[in-house]
């Protein structure tokens, strides 16, 4: 914990010290964070909404709940980070115990969109999801009655996946939606992958799970 604090303090001071406070720079940096719009030959500057998510998502299965919803940001052309919240209970997914899962999904678009037809394109993806399960007997840190390292933590699972998405560019004039993507991902979780490596009995087919979802991208 102490180390993390020191690292954060160091990073903050480096960032602050590298910022120049001259008047020009402030204007420049403001302009770089804005979008421009031409209206009656006049330039209007619109500040970008930094904290509003770039996409929303709804997903079926994929080890993070029967249904999960999420929002996230597109960073650069290739990388997306999505924060997901999933639920499984008796009604949704037929589990006798309710399970809530939160996940941070990191998705990378391997190629630029491969155009199929007009506004329809295909993008292959890979990614890594970090899943937290909230349920009965899961823990990050062992409860105090156990000897040290009696069990390994079982609350967080790392889940790599490969997938693809069909991207449909929306008609900009009618909506603020930029695109809709239908995606599917084939993945597994760390504990299963370990058994697949460690034993002959557990094959790749035994550890895979499939997720299907829709993402909405905004202007």
């Amino acid at each position, binding site marked *: 914990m102490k180390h993390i604090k020191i690292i954060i303090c160091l990073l903050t001071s480096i960032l602050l010290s590298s910022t120049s406070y001259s008047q020009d720079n402030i204007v420049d940096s403001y302009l770089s964070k804005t979008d421009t719009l031409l209206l009656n030959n006049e330039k209007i500057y619109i500040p970008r909404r930094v904290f509003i998510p770039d996409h929303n998502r709804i997903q079926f299965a994929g080890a993070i709940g029967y249904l999960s919803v999420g929002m996230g940001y597109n960073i650069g052309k290739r990388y997306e980070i999505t924060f997901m919240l999933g639920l499984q209970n008796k009604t949704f997914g037929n589990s006798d115990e309710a399970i809530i899962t939160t996940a941070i999904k990191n998705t990378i678009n391997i190629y630029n969109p491969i155009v199929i037809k007009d506004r329809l394109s295909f993008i292959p993806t890979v990614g890594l999801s970090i899943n937290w399960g909230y349920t009965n007997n899961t823990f990050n840190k062992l409860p105090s*009655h156990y000897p040290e390292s009696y069990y390994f933590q*079982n609350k967080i699972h790392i889940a790599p996946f490969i997938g693809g998405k069909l991207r449909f560019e929306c008609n900009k004039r009618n909506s603020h939606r930029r695109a809709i993507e239908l995606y599917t991902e084939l993945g597994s979780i760390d504990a299963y992958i370990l058994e697949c490596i460690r034993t002959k*009995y557990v094959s790749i087919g035994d550890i895979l799970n499939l997720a299907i979802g829709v993402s909405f991208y905004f202007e």
Partner: protein
Amino acid sequence: MRRILLGILFTILLLSCDNIFEYSPYQVKVDKADKDQNYKNLDIISKKSNKDFKPFKIVLFGDTHTYYDDFNDIVKELNKRSDFDFIVNMGDITLSGIYREFIWYSDIINKLNKPVLTIIGNHDCLANGEYVFKEMYGPTNFTFVYNNCKFVIFDDIVWERNVKDPDFEWFNTNLKNDENYTQVISLSHIQPWDEQFSYGNELLFNAILHNNNVKYSFHGHTHNYKKIKKYKDILGDVTYVTTEAGNDRGFLILTIEENDIKIEKINI
């Protein structure tokens, strides 16, 4: 055309994978075929049981965890033999108590020719494992009678239940030899001298066995074979026997006789 064919092939491949849609590794979702396996197997066992005592053999192994390859070999070896009547797994059938570990274990024991009874272990109580276990195998405390011998299966997991004492009252009541049984045999996952037991519980466990004239108590958990009269100096002379783990590739054959139990340890 090639792409479409490839797509169809891939889809078929995916659909052929069991449980391709997994909602959570912690899910408590057991298929009908996998439910209440201890009940189903007890049914088979009780049909073969005699009213009067007749010596018989059973097989014990435990702590199979995720040593699936070794476990598969044990199953193959047991299927070659026919000199025993049923099998008891002493617990710890998973490593983290997660969904597919239960499915994999269940798939392996279903290959056995003889009926298996499964006892709950401490690892099986991790995450939602306890609930999955109860769905798949039934109650964790139970008794049954075979050839006029009473078997008492006792759930003695402590830490994974947030340091809750095992149900010693149930244990004491059910170990009573109230119907003139030839033998009463106790089976549970954790041996009483384990660190999960407080010293009081340890002595209580032994005292209950001693007071009910139980001669043998069988356990898993330690991952090694031991046959020991642990509390000879304190109280009684109950013999405690612990089984090896799955990766030791072994099992015990117990010959239950009128006044004693003979133990043969076999490793493959």
